[in-house]
């Protein structure tokens, strides 16, 4: 272990934390400084994620895959906690970085003024997500989940307002329950196997004695329920629409990744623990996942059709995307997984972008609405209050047309219509499903088509209502420059991954096959350097 590159992997965790901690020491009135700081930090994270993903994509010198292992405290796995940057986690890391950066830029227009300590919380949230993605330890995963959730509570409640608080209440209650289940599951697993390291667990699964196996499965089921709650699977995801639609736009955009972290963990664990090398446990729970996923998709479809505004539709789109992924994981197979990963990235970006766009479109709409009133008419005025609070900064022209275009792009991404990445992902999944030619595959295909259809119907309805139907009396649409940059950043990412679909898809496919052969991962972690 030598050179700064070795420590790169922990950068996405330590850097935002250190900056956030430092910000707490800075006067809240120095907003520009804080904004600049977090912008720099997020950019740095993006760069780090870029380096890591580049490394995963190009592979090791001898042609194998790279799983960079970082033994915290210099304690080798499974005794210490390790961070593992493999194909999957770096992919998610990069996604988070892009999303985070864009949401941050968006928020610079005005949201960072809606409540105190925005930047610190934001960075901490990003740190939590990064940690959850990188960690190779189950309990540490719990801890990072909690960081992520604690910060997301803060972000959901950012700006206060009755609607937010009501939604936040349910969100917290549900997630606390999930955390308890998580703890129970982890504890049981420890009680049976004596380890918390995921790779070590994967190595031990096959050797679990027969009389312990039932209990082990119960433990994983409990754990699975916890993750399913986080990934908003039906019937445990009812909190998601109300929460996401109540949260402030940049928060919602970042939250779009949160449910995917749940999916990520499920993917990781099924890949590691229930792989064919898991002996009698191989393939455990996949059917359940598939059923859950389908139910979630159905619920999302109904919800998106019933949605009355774009934000809510976006929230249900997040659910649909979660459901799709769960069903695909349940379906299994390298082909499906590869396309699903591609879809994961695309749909997350699309939903996030829609959250941002919708906020701009709909903010003028219910000017008297509770949420906004509470945000910007603070009974207890801030000492650093200023008049520009409600202004989104520099305004760019031709807002309506640009926003209309943005809505269309988001809708294409979410509904999976060509020629954007949403379509490619969906087509890839259908290809794999049709190829598998089993009943489950066909059911998922049907649900995929149905969900696309529902998204088209709903998003055109709501999009038309938001962009084309504008009251004469309504305030003119304005888009701040920061907002425009943020939105176009996300959409640009969508476009890029559509144009360069082949390399991205190849990466995803390769990741899928890496996931289905966990021996490499286990080997990399358990032979990692350490004391």
């Amino acid at each position, binding site marked *: 272990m030598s050179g700064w590159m070795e420590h790169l992997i922990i950068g996405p965790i330590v850097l935002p934390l250190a900056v956030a901690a430092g910000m707490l020491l800075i006067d809240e009135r120095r907003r520009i400084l804080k904004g600049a700081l977090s912008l720099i930090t997020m950019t740095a994270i993006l760069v780090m994620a870029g380096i890591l993903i580049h490394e995963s994509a190009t592979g090791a010198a001898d042609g194998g895959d790279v799983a960079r292992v970082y033994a915290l405290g210099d304690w080798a796995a499974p005794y210490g906690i390790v961070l593992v940057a493999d194909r999957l986690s770096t992919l998610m890391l990069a996604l988070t970085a892009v999303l985070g950066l864009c949401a941050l830029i968006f928020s610079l227009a005005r949201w960072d003024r809606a409540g105190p300590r925005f930047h610190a919380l934001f960075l901490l949230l990003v740190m939590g997500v990064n940690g959850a993605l990188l960690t190779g330890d189950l*309990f540490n995963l719990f*801890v990072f989940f*909690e960081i992520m959730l*604690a910060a997301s*509570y803060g972000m959901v*409640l950012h700006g*206060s*307002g*009755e609607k937010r*608080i*009501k939604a*936040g*209440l*349910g969100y*917290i*209650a549900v997630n*606390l*329950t999930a*955390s*308890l289940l998580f*703890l*129970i599951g*982890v*504890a*049981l697993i*420890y*009680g049976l196997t004596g380890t*918390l390291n995921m790779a070590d667990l994967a190595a031990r699964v096959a050797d679990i004695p027969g009389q312990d196996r039932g209990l082990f499965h119960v433990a994983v089921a409990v754990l699975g329920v916890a993750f399913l709650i986080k990934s908003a699977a039906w019937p445990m995801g009812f909190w998601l629409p109300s929460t996401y639609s109540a949260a402030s736009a940049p928060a919602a955009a970042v939250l779009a990744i949160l449910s995917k972290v749940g999916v990520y963990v499920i993917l990781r664990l099924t890949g590691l623990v229930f792989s064919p090398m898991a002996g009698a446990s191989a393939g455990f729970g996949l059917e359940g996942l598939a059923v859950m996923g389908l139910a979630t998709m159905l619920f999302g479809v109904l919800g998106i059709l019933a949605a009355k505004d774009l934000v809510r539709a976006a929230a249900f789109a997040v659910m649909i995307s979660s459901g799709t992924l769960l069903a695909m994981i349940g379906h299994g197979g390298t082909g499906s997984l590869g396309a699903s990963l591609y879809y994961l990235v695309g749909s997350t970006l699309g939903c996030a972008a829609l959250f941002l766009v919708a906020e701009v479109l709909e903010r003028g709409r219910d000017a008297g609405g509770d949420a906004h009133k*509470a945000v910007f008419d603070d009974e207890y005025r801030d000492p650093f209050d200023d008049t520009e609070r409600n202004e989104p900064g520099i305004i760019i022209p031709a807002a309506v047309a640009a926003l209309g275009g943005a809505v269309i792009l988001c809708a294409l991404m979410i509904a999976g219509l060509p020629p954007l990445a949403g379509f490619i992902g969906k087509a890839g999944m259908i290809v794999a499903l049709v190829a598998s030619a089993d009943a489950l595959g066909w059911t998922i295909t049907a649900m995929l088509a149905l969900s696309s259809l529902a998204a088209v119907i709903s998003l055109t309805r709501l999009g038309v209502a938001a962009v084309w139907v504008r009251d004469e009396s309504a305030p003119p649409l304005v888009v701040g420059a920061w907002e425009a940059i943020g939105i176009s950043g996300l959409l640009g990412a969508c476009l890029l991954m559509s144009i360069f679909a082949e390399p991205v898809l190849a990466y995803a496919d390769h990741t899928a096959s890496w996931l289905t052969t966990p021996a490499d991962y286990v080997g990399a972690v358990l032979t990692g350097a350490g004391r």
Partner: protein
Amino acid sequence: MEIVLALAIGVLAASGTWLLLRPRTFQVIMGLCLLSYAVNIFIFAMGRLRIAAAPVTQSGMETLAPYDDPTPQALVLTAIVISFALTALFLVVVLAARGATGSDHVDGEEPKA
């Protein structure tokens, strides 16, 4: 000993679950507290039960055999802290909800008749 502790976990968990499913925010907070007691003991129990075997090593006896499993204890400590923090947060959100909506129902409004 084991059976008593198992029953204790069961009673705490059942009471907690019951409260968690109640409509008033205060009940839910209490439920979460009780549940986290139950879960803490549960995690702890995963290290099996030992009396008078606190995991503080004596010199010359650096093996696991004479001590209780320290790992679950460390996990419980972390869990205690986190659940404490989140309980506090939940409490504050409950208060804020009560302030904003005037109701202490978990939905932020009284159920319609």
